């Protein structure tokens, strides 16, 4: 690769323009602190011949109001391409790129703003190191030898510390199983082993979960645990690791494990860590790259997605949607569906609010004297409602159900099947918030919860026309078919078109009963 010298031609409120040939990682520093990295060619666009432009990432843009010493350097050589006092926007103060807790933050390789390790003190990361040891021990107690992987292993092998631009810690193991279904079962079992040690865990897929670790100053850091397995056939031996790796590999390059040093402590590593790192990052793994991007082949993505993914579709989008409102009590009035449920249960009973969101309906229903079980993909969205209900001594319980995961549907369905007395389930824009698999799971959950005379009241956007964000219209007949397949008797289906001149989608209302 031919590489020329490079330089910065322009810096303004929109972004940077640089010159130079030959791709390389470039760091952008604010008052001497790395905040963002990108590749000179890969991540930029050519505006005029010889000039490469890149916009400020949206996550960074909101901080660009004030003054800073702006420095641009080549990551590997350290060569300074730009170093000047700059003003952005109108504020006269220094630009401070910090998170809600006041901790310095920067952009990780996915351009997400996070408290990357280069902003952390040794005291800050000590709880993470302790958590890694505890989690490794919990996994070992379940019979699996896990080790440092991905960026954490790379940091340990290359620098004996966390990579400055990394934002989470990673563990992996190679299963003794070779069938993906067994690998998934084992991952479920390991999550339980870790959860029993008192950690809060979060499942990404059938082969990966996260442990939330609180650091010294309250920053919550993700510790990921990835499953791998080796598929041995007559054609060879291929290692698959969630979520990026497929490589020709020998089991004895992993086990027995050896040790490596991370932040002054000893941790397990694969037997030949160089082989593992090459499988993860390619042959240039030893060259530092703060803006690394996986170039996982389409086939590997198809394989890993097919075997392991599909259990948390759209969850991150819903979490983001609710993150701003966390802790705030919703002020929305009760929906017509909630009022209808209350009128059905005029002499008391239980409302199962499926897809409760922030819980406005749930709280209103509980205040009418009803027992309420509020279910959502993102139960933290209804935290404030749960707290208020507890303070007011109302019978309201917020719980998680994931319609893309049968286990939650079956376990919570079993729980709801035990509820005595009249039951009504409301599902307000839940069928249109999920996919086909989720709608079938909704029908299954309703069937388990409502057998013996329980009713389901369901609202759905049916299209054509505009729907709110993250909701996709579904024909009412399709919803009815899925419910009927689970034993429902459809009492009412009604569609109401949008008002004349409105761009909005039509709405559907459905009432079903399980006898």
């Amino acid at each position, binding site marked *: 690769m031919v590489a020329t010298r490079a330089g910065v031609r322009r810096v303004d409120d929109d972004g940077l323009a640089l010159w130079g040939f030959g791709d390389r990682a470039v760091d952008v520093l604010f008052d001497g602190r790395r905040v963002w990295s990108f590749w000179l060619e890969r991540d930029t666009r050519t505006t005029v011949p010889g000039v490469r432009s890149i916009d400020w990432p949206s996550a960074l843009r909101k901080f660009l109001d004030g003054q800073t010493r702006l420095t641009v350097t080549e990551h590997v050589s350290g060569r300074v391409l730009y170093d000047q006092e700059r003003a952005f926007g109108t504020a006269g103060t220094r630009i401070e790129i910090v998170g809600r807790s006041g901790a310095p933050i920067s952009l990780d390789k996915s351009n997400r703003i996070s408290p990357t390790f280069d902003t952390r003190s040794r005291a800050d990361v000590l709880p993470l190191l302790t958590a890694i040891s505890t989690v490794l021990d919990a996994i070992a107690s379940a019979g699996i030898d896990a080790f440092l992987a991905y960026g954490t292993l790379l940091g340990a092998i290359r620098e004996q510390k966390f990579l400055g631009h990394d934002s989470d810690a990673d563990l992996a193991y190679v299963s003794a199983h070779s*069938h*993906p*279904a*067994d690998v*998934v*079962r084992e991952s*479920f*079992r390991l*999550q*339980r082993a870790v*959860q*029993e040690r008192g950690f809060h*865990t979060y*499942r990404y*897929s*059938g082969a990966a979960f996260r442990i939330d670790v609180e650091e010294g100053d309250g920053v919550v850091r993700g510790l990921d645990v990835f499953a791998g397995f080796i598929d041995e056939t007559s054609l060879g031996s291929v290692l698959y690791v969630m979520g990026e790796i497929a490589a020709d590999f020998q089991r004895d390059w992993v086990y027995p494990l050896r040790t490596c040093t991370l932040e002054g402590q000893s941790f397990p590593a694969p037997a030949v860590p160089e082989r593992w790192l090459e499988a993860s990052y390619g042959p240039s793994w030893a060259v530092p790259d703060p803006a690394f991007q996986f170039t996982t082949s*389409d*086939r590997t993505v*198809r*394989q890993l*997605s*097919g*075997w*392991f*993914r*599909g*259990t948390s579709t759209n969850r991150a989008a819903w979490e983001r949607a609710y993150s701003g409102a966390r802790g705030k009590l919703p002020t929305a009035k009760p929906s017509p569906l909630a009022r209808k449920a209350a009128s059905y249960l005029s002499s008391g009973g239980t409302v199962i609010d499926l897809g409760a969101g922030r819980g406005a309906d749930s709280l209103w229903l509980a205040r009418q004297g009803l027992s309420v079980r509020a279910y959502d993909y993102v139960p933290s969205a209804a935290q404030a409602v749960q707290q208020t209900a507890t303070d007011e001594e109302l019978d309201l319980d917020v*719980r*998680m159900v*994931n319609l893309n*995961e*049968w*286990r*939650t549907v*079956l*376990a*919570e369905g*079993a*729980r709801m099947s*035990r509820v005595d007395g009249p039951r009504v389930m409301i599902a307000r824009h839940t069928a249109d918030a999920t996919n086909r698999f989720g709608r079938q799971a909704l029908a299954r959950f309703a069937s388990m919860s409502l057998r013996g005379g329980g009713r389901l009241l369901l609202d759905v956007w049916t299209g054509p026309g505009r729907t709110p964000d993250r909701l996709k219209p579904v024909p009412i007949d399709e919803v009815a078919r899925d419910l009927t397949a689970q034993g429902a008797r459809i009492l009412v289906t009604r569609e109401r078109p949008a008002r004349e001149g409105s761009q909005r989608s039509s709405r559907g209302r459905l009432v079903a009963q399980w006898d």
Partner: protein
Amino acid sequence: MGLKDAAGRLKPKLGLGDADLARRVEALEADVLELRRHNVRLAEIADVVQELLVPLASRDQARIDEAIEKFSRSL
């Protein structure tokens, strides 16, 4: 070797046109995906049965409730 490469080699032998072959490959990929997807669901069912069947067989309601609660917490 990916499916598309294999298909490219087979094409002259089968006497298929490009569009036809592309459709067949697409359908084949969808079929493979459908089969792969059974893995996670099979594992889910096995997990639920294993974790909840024993307490359910005990017919001890308190034990059953506790088992469901514990299971749900781990998801």
